[in-house]
């Protein structure tokens, strides 16, 4: 899958999993922060997002991962993480 296709797919997954239906995939800036400011997601969203990613890609997010903050930092980092774990 190309980078852009995965970005689009994960953006769509975020919108569906977190009920952000008033957004479209193109509204999510791949480099903007997902949590806190930026998209404004919170810890409950993080849990729901982790579940959706686990179900779709079989990738588990874990607090033990030293890169967790970076992985959840932006859509692009999240996609890189998924690609690295599913490769």
């Amino acid at each position, binding site marked *: 899958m190309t980078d852009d296709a995965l970005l689009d797919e994960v953006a769509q997954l975020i919108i569906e999993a977190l*009920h952000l239906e*008033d957004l479209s995939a193109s509204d999510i800036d791949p480099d903007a922060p997902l949590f*806190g*400011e930026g998209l*404004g997601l*919170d*810890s*409950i969203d*993080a*849990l*729901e997002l*982790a*579940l959706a990613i*686990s*179900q779709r890609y*079989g990738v*588990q*997010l*874990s*607090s*033990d991962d030293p890169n967790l903050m970076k992985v959840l930092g932006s859509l692009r980092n999240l996609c890189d993480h998924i690609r690295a774990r599913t490769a």
Partner: protein
Amino acid sequence: MRSRVHDPLYLLAILGFWTWIFVSLAFGALLLALFANAFWWSAVTNLIDYAIIALVFVPEYAVRRRVLTEEEHSGFFDYVRGLLRSGLQPNGRPAMKTLGAMQSIMPGFRPGGILVWRNGEPLTHGRFIGQVLALAQSMPEVRCAINLCEDRHLFLLALCACLVRGSRCLLPPDRLANTIEQVAAGNPGALCISDTPVPDLSLPLWTLGEPDAAEEDIGTLPEIPYERECLVAFTSGSTGRPQPHPKRWGDLMLGAVLAARRFGIRAETTLIATVHAQHMYGLELSIMVPLAVGAATESSRPFFPADVRRALGQVPAPRVLVTTPVHLTACAGSAIDWPAIDFAISATAPLSAEQARFAEGRMGTRVFEIYGCTEAGSLASRRTGDGPVWRWYDTVKATPTDSGTLVEGDFLPAPVPLADILEFEEGGFRLLGRSREMLKVAGKRASLADLNLKLTGIPGVVDGVFVAPEEEGLEVRRLAAIVVAPCLGRESLLQELRRVIDPVFLPRPLVFVDSLPRNEAGKLPRRRLLQLIGRQSDTESGPDGAPC
């Protein structure tokens, strides 16, 4: 559940009872015929009759009084064992001996027992008490301390050191700097104790690090008077300020004993909790139960399902997961192989029977729920997949009044009014709903009045109101808000809100309007508010950067 009829001891006792009645009557008649005064003989036989009645029917009475579950009452000896273990009298009230034991800092103390598992390493009761006494000596002298520790081992240390020193432990409802400062303002001179930094906090913070490996201390345990108000839990309240709820030490310990007893949590059990130790539910199950009955607690607060799996894997069975519907559903939905979990407990928000059965199937466990509130602690439980009826804890009595339900219990110093609407039925109750003004999002409680005060308290907000979009039901997914703030942009308003309210209450959607649709009485008709948030696509774009 085993039927009583198949219990051989019970059958034998019943048979013996009737045989004895028959035999004693026959002998009584015979003796009366042979001797003029058979008083002593009949007294002896009567005494034996009473003994048998006590053997057979007292356990039956105990089940009816909910001192014993029917499973525990499979025989007389199990009954006696159950009573001895619980420290309760047959009428369900705590024995005086038990009340005395509640005055210890750790009623569940056993020299070799394990209190905490941390990264797979056990910490014994004796070593823990050694650490507590050492910390109590080095701690600054204060009247009260705000315990912000996230690690359960350090939380326990700070709590118990405060107990030894006679300082009150304050537990704010969240970790926002604003909330902590409000709690501190109400308790001048309070010391903040934490193991991790708190962003934006303007108060001095006493950082609690990993304690030195203390010596085992199995001398006399520090005694804490039953009546001492040693701890204060807070709710967000409806006045814009956290509302304090002081707790007495003995009540906390007794409540924990009753909770442990309801679920069969024993000294061998290890509790793994995804909830904060500062929240009443997390406090009771992951802190007070271990102290009261000598069970162990896992020190971390696992967040993602993979974290929960790791924490479970690092402790021995029997394991009990203490969690919330959001975490339980995420864990059950993840493709993870779970180790043996004795059972899971969920609280803070209602779990549906489907969610519970799904989690039971996927995680190979049993799922129970606790009903309670910060004011009273846990009060009732149910196995969610079995039906909607909740069963009160031992000693809890609920009375319907005109203004709602009042609960009493041996672990409550005074009757507590409940914010929920209950329907009573045989042996328990059903939960019908929550009083209109109170709501819950993702297990966190708030009142609309409080949120509205915080919203309108933000500089630049002329008027504003939070709206719970769901018509009925107990749990709100997300709140919406409608604001009049001509000079504020969406981003800056959200940023200000983030400082004063928990992120789960941040409005989604947030609608900007020129004025709120107040009617002649100044009230806001709910229908009009719902229309406004439904029409959000038209008004979605706030006046970002509007000149002012």
